[in-house]
């Protein structure tokens, strides 16, 4: 029923809200905290404090360093995933991009390659040899290697984006297939072997410190800040939120939907490659299977942070909190000496909880609008 309402209706619609605030019960309080931006940060702090008397080790400087070492590269991947979730998509191929770009980087930078290990590789003799990779011992090896890693990562993402935007294929299926394909391609290129001989200049990115601040931290924070600026300050960022909130309205308003989608997936691939730089540097090798165990961590941490799977809602800062919480949680499980299997079970459950939480939050917010919806 629609057409005619009298001028009274503005007033009348305020009523339900007033009614909501009239009951200052516990549920309202909980609701308020649950929809708060900092909810996950509070949760992380609470978790830390509660665990402190149980395992005092958690606060040891070694463990704290450990925690932060985990946080930075994971955060970098999750930033990409955040943007994808913002447009109501999902990128399951990031984990394979990490492995693939790890191999790509090594193919460029490695200074010596053991023929016993890699002479079966289809690239042996052309791209790589005993003397190392394409740019072995060149002063440009590291910058070019990193550039190629980022480029390949972005390219894989762009391909995802193309199929999702132009051919309207379901995102999870497209990225699942690229995950499979890219992973197996990396395995094929290396015959499942690691490539060593990475220059020190590269490994420093993963392990080095400037003063007492890890390089990984600095570059990841720069990535985060730039991403957040992109989201909140630029035209593109506003388009991303718009596409995630309401695709139809965005298209009517002249937002280039396909371009936005392709950019976001390319960026997601970029972030995965970015993390791969850190991970590979720490390992001092190019490893095709790198990242394969991370899927749950990436999706879980991002969703826990509060970025909605339904699109249009999320921030890089939230993702930071999500990663913090996720890493703290797994850290404690590790300190309890639980095996990886149990940890995996817990991770699976955590994601379900996070997803459930997202559904509840979305519902709480939808309830606020229900009243008005029924009227229109």
């Amino acid at each position, binding site marked *: 029923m629609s057409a005619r309402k009298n001028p009274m209706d503005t007033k009348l619609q305020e009523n339900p809200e007033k009614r909501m605030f009239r009951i200052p019960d516990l549920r309202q309080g909980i609701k308020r905290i649950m929809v708060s931006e900092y909810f996950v940060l509070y949760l992380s702090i609470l978790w830390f404090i509660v665990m402190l008397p149980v395992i005092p080790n958690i606060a040891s400087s070694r463990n704290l360093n450990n925690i932060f070492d985990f946080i930075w590269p994971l955060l970098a991947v999750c930033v990409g995933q955040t943007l994808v979730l913002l447009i109501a998509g999902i990128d399951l191929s990031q984990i394979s991009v990490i492995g693939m770009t790890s191999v790509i980087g090594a193919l460029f930078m490695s200074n010596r390659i053991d023929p016993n290990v890699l002479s079966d590789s289809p690239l042996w003799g052309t791209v790589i040899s005993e003397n190392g990779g394409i740019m072995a011992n060149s002063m440009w090896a590291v910058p070019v290697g990193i550039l190629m890693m980022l480029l390949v990562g972005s390219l894989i993402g762009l391909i995802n984006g193309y199929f999702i935007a132009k051919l309207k294929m379901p995102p999870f299926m497209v990225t699942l297939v690229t995950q499979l394909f890219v992973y197996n391609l990396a395995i*094929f290129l290396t015959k499942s072997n690691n490539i060593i001989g990475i220059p020190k200049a590269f490994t420093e990115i993963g392990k080095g410190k400037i003063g007492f601040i890890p390089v990984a931290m600095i570059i990841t924070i720069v990535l985060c800040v730039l991403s957040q600026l992109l989201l909140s300050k630029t035209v593109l960022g506003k388009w991303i939120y718009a596409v995630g909130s309401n695709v139809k309205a965005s298209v009517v308003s002249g937002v280039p939907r396909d371009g936005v989608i392709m950019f976001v997936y390319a960026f997601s691939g970029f972030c995965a490659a970015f993390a791969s730089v850190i991970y590979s540097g720490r390992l001092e090798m190019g490893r095709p299977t790198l990242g394969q165990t991370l899927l749950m961590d990436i*999706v879980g941490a991002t969703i826990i942070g509060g970025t909605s799977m339904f699109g249009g809602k999320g921030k890089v800062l939230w993702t930071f909190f999500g990663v913090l919480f996720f890493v703290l949680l797994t850290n404690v499980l590790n300190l309890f000496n639980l095996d990886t299997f149990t940890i995996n079970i817990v991770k699976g*459950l955590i994601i379900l909880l996070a997803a459930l939480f997202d559904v509840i939050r979305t519902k709480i917010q939808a309830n606020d609008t229900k009243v008005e919806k029924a009227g229109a």
Partner: protein
Amino acid sequence: MSKTAIKFKLAILKNTPFILFVCIFIIFGILSPKFFQYENFENIATSASYIGIVTVGMTFVLLTAGIDLSVGSNMFLSASIAGLLIRDLNAPIWLALLCAVLVGTLYGGINAFFIVKLRILPFLVTLSTLVAGRGLGLLITKSQGVTLPESISNWGAVRVVGLPVPIIIYAVIALIAHLFLKFFPMGRQIYAIGNDPEAAKKAGLNTDRSIAFVYIISGLLAAIAGIVSVSQMGIVNAGFGDGDEFDAIAAAVLGGTSLFGGIGTIFPGAVIGTILIQMVQAGLVYTQVDMYIQPLIQAAVIFVAVFLDSIRSREISKIEKRHIRVEN
């Protein structure tokens, strides 16, 4: 575009499974004449049977426009439990197998609970249970292979009426599922839900019940598939069932089942899709394709399947749209 051109396009898109089947058949046949031997077909069919069983369940799920990524882990977990019951507790085989089936069904039930009751996206739910299920399986088996007694591993090779048992089990399941989807009220209602969930609700159908049902069936069939697979391999190792969900999805979609729901059949669809997938795998072996390239080709096949499905759905909706507007 003229009407005949549209019809032609639709005819091709709707019959892709058969066209692909023939193409792949011919390609491998040319590349390796051995491909045409009877033993080869029997081998393909035998090794296809467990994937075929999973694909039947997957088809049910896909018909409602859902997805079940957890079937591989489900196979692993339920088969592990059966193996452990027999090995460590000396449980009678029938009891162990029954337990495995129950575990698989429960597994599906958990998926259904999260999807129907808590309204979480199916792919996320089943992705989580994929990880959690495998974790649980590895935990109880201490990530070591569980060998099953010969009494089980033998009957994988037993023949009844000249056919290996796995093929017979698969045939029976496929037949029941086919009849269910065709002749049972709920079977038809599953199609209705996949076609238009809103209209299904308006028509008074219990959509929640049907959706829960398909995930439970998928879990049940995954467990049976696990048992069938074990009967052929004799051991449940840590990688058991890993990645089988992809084969099942690919088989279903290659067989013409749509990821967007409402379209798909067990026979010929899922059956042809399964054979197709298995044929590609066998063909790759026969033509001696590099071990490392095989998974790349398989991934490409899955991609082609999903790609064709998207194009088909888009074309159909375009034509439908035209229909609706013509009369306005």
